[in-house]
């Protein structure tokens, strides 16, 4: 079976495309803007979700968390685990793991002379806590903890406001020891931190790990072991190795299982991006099909002629699809270029502080950083090309189905 060579088909398709400049340019503009909207809006949504996820993961950093099996249901002192053993310590040496730390994390009450609040008391090793991601610059007054047996306390700015306390003042922290007796201690506030989300400032208070272990009679027991890697999205590559080393007696969970809200947020966003891209494409497809139908309708005689000269119906079909392909490829190139050109200047962030309070309820901060992901671009391009060609089959098939004589006699 003979068919028109690719270069001849390309030439014919290219010239046919520009027979009606105005229509082609309008369609190209629509595809360009559509593709730009797909990629740009996806980058904004990805940026927002990344921010929400990072804020969630970094509230107490750790992409993989090891807990007592009952800790998630009852985060009390009795559901503690031993510090990492040899096997786990060896596993934590793998290159994918960038840092790890142990924490005591228990519910507590903090009281000043003015007020009392329920908080989460976190006993940390300051050095390793900074390595896993605690932002030392978040300390806006005073200092961070200097060692595991530091006797000072770090509280959030909002908490300081509620307790009407300040740097250098004393507060009392009260929790329970393993015998269910009240364990309390006076701490001097040595540092005040500001978090991206005000709710975090009201939740966590930090003290030295050893200080808290002594207060709660925990010896070297901890509430959790937190491990971080290069990128939270790649956690699945190394988490099974850690899980195996940690053993069956503990819960070893990646961040998306430890915090199912964050995990479902990521899945939901993936679905939302796909729906968004398809919705935009559907709007585009009407224009695309209309353009091709008009292009075919205007060339009925010409198509009849090609058939009369010996062009097979299948070649006519490929010819029309080639025109659609060219239109889509040019639109995609322009759309991608426009998207990249508008996203790159915004890499330093978009200030959305005007709506920051509303955004904070969703767990995002007041700066939005568009996240241009190669996978999202590939998905948008693949969907536009694939569905674009599929929708073009209808006008192409119509053209290929013409009877040569009827087509030649069209006026």
């Amino acid at each position, binding site marked *: *079976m*003979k*068919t*028109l*060579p690719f270069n*001849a088909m390309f*030439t*014919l398709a290219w*010239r*046919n495309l520009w*027979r009606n400049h105005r229509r082609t340019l309008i369609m190209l503009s629509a595809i360009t803007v559509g593709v730009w909207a797909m990629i740009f809006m996806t980058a904004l949504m990805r940026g927002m979700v990344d921010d929400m996820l990072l804020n969630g993961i970094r509230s107490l950093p750790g992409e993989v968390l090891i807990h007592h099996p009952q800790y998630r249901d009852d985060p009390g002192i009795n559901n503690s685990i031993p510090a990492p053993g040899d096997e786990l310590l060896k596993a934590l040496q793998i290159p994918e793991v960038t840092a790890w730390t142990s924490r005591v994390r228990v519910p507590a009450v903090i009281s000043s002379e003015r007020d009392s609040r329920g908080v989460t008391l976190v006993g940390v090793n300051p050095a390793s806590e900074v390595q896993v991601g605690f932002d030392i610059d978040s300390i806006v007054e005073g200092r961070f903890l200097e060692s595991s047996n530091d006797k000072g306390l770090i509280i959030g700015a909002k908490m300081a406001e509620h307790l009407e306390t300040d740097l250098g003042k004393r507060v009392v922290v009260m929790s329970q020891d393993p015998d269910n007796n009240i364990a309390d201690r006076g701490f001097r506030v040595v540092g005040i931190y500001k978090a991206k989300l005000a709710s975090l400032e009201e939740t966590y208070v930090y003290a030295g790990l050893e200080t808290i272990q002594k207060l709660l009679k925990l010896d070297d027991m901890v509430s959790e072991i937190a491990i971080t890697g290069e990128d939270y999205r790649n956690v699945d590559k190394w988490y099974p190795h850690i899980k195996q080393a940690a053993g069956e007696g503990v819960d070893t969970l990646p961040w998306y299982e430890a915090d199912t809200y964050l995990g479902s947020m990521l899945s939901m966003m993936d679905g939302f991006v796909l729906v968004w891209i398809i919705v935009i494409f559907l709007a585009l497809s009407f224009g695309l099909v209309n353009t091709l139908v008009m292009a075919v309708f205007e060339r009925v*005689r*010409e198509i009849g*002629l*090609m*058939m*009369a*000269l*010996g*062009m*097979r*119906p*299948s*070649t006519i079909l490929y010819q029309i699809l080639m025109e659609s392909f060219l239109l889509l490829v040019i639109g995609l190139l322009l759309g991608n270029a426009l998207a990249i050109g508008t996203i790159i200047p915004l890499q330093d962030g978009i200030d959305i502080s005007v709506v920051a309070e509303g955004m904070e309820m969703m767990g995002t901060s007041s700066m939005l950083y568009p996240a241009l992901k190669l996978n999202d671009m590939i998905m948008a391009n693949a969907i536009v090309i694939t569905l674009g060609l599929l929708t073009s089959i209808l006008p192409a098939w119509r053209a290929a189905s013409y009877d*040569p*004589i009827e087509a*030649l006699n069209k006026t």
Partner: protein
Amino acid sequence: MSSIVCKDLCKTFQQGEEIITGLDHVSIEIDAGDFVCLSGPSGSGKTTLLNAMGGLDTPDSGQIRVGDTQVDQLGKGPLADMRLHKIGFVFQAYNLIPVLTARENVEFVMQVRGVPANERSGRSHDILKEVGLEGMEDRRPAQLSGGQQQRVAVARAIVSQPALVLADEPTANLDSVTAAHLMDLFVELNSNHKITFVIATHDVRVMGYAKRLIKMRDGKIISDEKQQQPLIED
């Protein structure tokens, strides 16, 4: 040897509620290298017969053989292949592809046939020269006169040296001088390349060139005679 054999062809068309007879039990044999004119008034069936011979239209009944191919038994694809390899068409309304130049229009059929670029280029150059369009190879149809466009169409029809050229009213849109030039060209090609020509026409000037004149009316052949003194010199 017969180039075309048609046996008992019948074809009807529905026009509103009326049934129109296109071909009414037409049987005809055309020898290879012949120069035949189908004449008759509008609606006599000459174009229908021409289209049936070219595999562009399917008769309701009867048989058509072109060379050794039984045309009436072919599907759409093989029919297209048969037209590509065996037949050259010249239509009344030039019918060139507007986005292609004269040379590209001529090369189009050769491209579909897979003729190598060098050979295509040489043959298109030669044939355009032969039809008097040297120097106009890169003009698009809109930049050519009606006569020049018809010459490009003729060049396209014969460039692959088909066994058969079917022409439907090829001079209808041409002035008398251009029409005479075109017919001279047909005669020359028939003589030099032994291409069989079947021309549907109601132009008496064209009929004068035919070696064989077949007259039709109401879908029937009413006369079929060899011309005693055609304008063709064998």
